[in-house]
């Protein structure tokens, strides 16, 4: 019954969003049926459809987990966007400065030339730590001064974007490059694509080891939240702060911890983006991953398995959006943003406020315990 309850409401929300989206498509004189066939069907071809879908899902898994961990502690991390930018830049910085330079890097000097087996983990670590620090700041501000994490994370998003814009433009760009991007990272810092390991899977598809890391992260987050004392205290803080404090949990510590872990997870997007895909920091690369992560976490009921499934669903839509753009007359790929927005609004609604007492009748609602 628990599983039914956990799956049913997100599913209803997605279906309802599709119905509303379908009405919009119909109003603008396109066929909802054809649009949805393109939107969903495009993801399942081998190898391109599946490869690109999993590649698109990777950052969403990370940001979804990030938002979910914060949510479990009763915090809304709306700053995953800034955290992943800072992390991506940190990964790129280590990749540029600590390894033998890429032939295209004619401008930026190196500190040392580390071998790949040291450089690659160091780059990953840089991303996680940078994200954790950028996420930890609002945590610390909340724990120390009680200032609201939502506003602080939004402000830190803007600060991150401005700061990194400066570093990219004035410090780490190759002079004369018309694009706002850093010099390429060392070839020793690049994460191999899965095409190297899977026979018949072409290497041109950017799906890389970061996806494997994302799956591992899901498992680790599950273990952390439900099998460790720290995770228990974190969830206790989110469920009932005063009771947790009465039970001896330091709420302030939990807030900082949750935000730092959340930031670190968001920062892992940098591993996929910089080390696995572009091999440089590219200004403004994120397609709203941080904000879509909120939808992913909510739809996945803040559970790692749910996050994984929701990220795949949204990646399917992202992938399909490209085909909708190309093969329909009126509908553009922006319909994906629209559907995501509707899904977020719908999953935010309290089921008991919509369906009222009929839920209790079917045993889908826990009765209030006294």
């Amino acid at each position, binding site marked *: 019954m628990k599983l039914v309850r956990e799956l049913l409401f997100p599913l209803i929300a997605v279906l309802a969003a599709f119905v509303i989206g379908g009405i919009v498509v119909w109003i603008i004189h396109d066929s909802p049926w054809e649009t949805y066939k393109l939107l969903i069907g495009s993801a399942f071809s081998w190898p391109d459809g599946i490869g690109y879908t999993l590649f698109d899902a990777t950052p969403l898994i990370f940001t979804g987990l990030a938002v979910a961990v914060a949510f479990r502690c009763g915090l809304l991390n709306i700053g995953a966007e800034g955290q992943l930018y800072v992390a991506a830049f940190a990964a790129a910085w280590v990749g540029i400065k600590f390894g033998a330079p890429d032939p295209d890097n004619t401008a930026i000097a190196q500190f040392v030339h580390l071998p790949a087996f040291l450089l690659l983990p160091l780059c990953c670590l840089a991303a996680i730590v940078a994200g954790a620090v950028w996420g930890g700041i609002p945590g610390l501000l909340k724990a120390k001064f009680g200032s609201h994490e939502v506003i602080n994370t939004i402000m830190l998003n803007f600060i991150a974007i401005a700061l990194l814009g400066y570093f990219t433009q004035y410090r780490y760009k190759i002079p004369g490059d018309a694009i706002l991007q850093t010099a390429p990272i060392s070839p020793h810092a690049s994460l191999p694509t899965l095409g190297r390991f899977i026979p018949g899977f072409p290497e041109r598809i950017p799906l890389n080891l970061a996806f494997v890391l994302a799956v591992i992260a899901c498992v680790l987050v599950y273990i952390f939240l439900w099998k460790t004392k720290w995770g228990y205290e974190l969830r206790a803080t989110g469920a009932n702060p005063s009771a947790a404090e009465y039970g001896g949990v330091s709420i302030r510590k939990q807030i900082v911890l949750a935000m730092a872990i959340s930031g670190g997870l968001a920062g892992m997007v940098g591993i996929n983006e910089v080390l696995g895909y572009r091999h440089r920091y590219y200004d403004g690369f994120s397609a709203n991953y941080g904000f879509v992560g909120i*939808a992913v976490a909510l739809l996945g009921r803040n559970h790692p398995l749910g996050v994984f499934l929701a990220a795949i669903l949204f990646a399917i839509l992202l992938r399909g959006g490209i085909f909708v753009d190309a093969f329909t007359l009126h509908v553009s790929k922006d319909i994906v943003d629209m559907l995501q927005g509707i899904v977020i609004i719908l999953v935010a609604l309290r089921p008991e406020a919509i369906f009222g007492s009929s839920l209790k009748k079917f045993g889908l609602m826990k009765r209030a315990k006294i």
Partner: protein
Amino acid sequence: MRQIFTLSLLFSTIRLSTPLVLAAVGGLYSERSGVINIALEGLLLAGAFTAAAVTFYAHSPWVGLTAAILAGAAVAAIHAIACIRFKADQVVTGTGINILFIGLPAVLSGALFLSSGSTPQIPKDNLLPALSRFLPFMPAWRIFTDVSIISLLALVVVLLTRYVLYRTPFGLRLRAVGENPEAADAAGVGVNVMRYTGVILSGALAGIGGAYLSIGQSSLFTRNMAAGRGFIALAALIFGKWRPVQTMLACLLFGFADALTIQMQGVAKLPWNPSEDIPVQFIQMIPYLVTIVVLAGFIGQSRAPKALGIPYQKER
């Protein structure tokens, strides 16, 4: 310095602050009633798109402006129903609306104008006019030619809000349901009615702000043209301690920082290295840093309405 602190800087500050003021004062009505309105960004976008699209067909900025007000109010009503009737998490719903209005205007403009997310150019005569249009006998001073009628409207809205909030029964009730809904309810004030009113008013005002973006400051709607202004308005609201005049001053400060960034580009040099420009990014950052400092309570405590973010459940 002379090159930077000019009259243009002043007018540029007014121009850039106008949408912020309208959105922030809109947010004030919502938040004072106890409903967090992080959806200001989406409301601005809804207003901006509607204003541009309707003006394009109707050839009149006034029709466009009215449509933008209605659109803002309608979208805010969605937020209100989700938050009040269905007790949704207010920040999450707001985020949903923000993402929805990155997508929806682009989908609609793609369908209506076969473009990738923007409306066609609107002729200059159909844009929201400057003050000089209404003052035919005035000399061509820049205050009349460079300042939009909407900027004046924003100022009026602020002063009116100050009056309404502190001097009328409506304002007292609005503040009461945001501070202590139980007591307000016991005194016979309809908590949910006040909250619906507050949120819908915020949408209407943000709609005007959006209209100013697309058919006042600019001459078309472009994808995601609010560019974070809704979030800055929210920050200004908090910076201004949820009070109308202080909020306007905060908006002016943010607008000033923005204007300064534009004005300083390629002009201001580093004091220790006159051959290098001061990077604009550092000036862009200032308002955000200031907000964080203010929130942390270093410059006077900014206290939110007590019941902000908490759905009201009537006792049975």
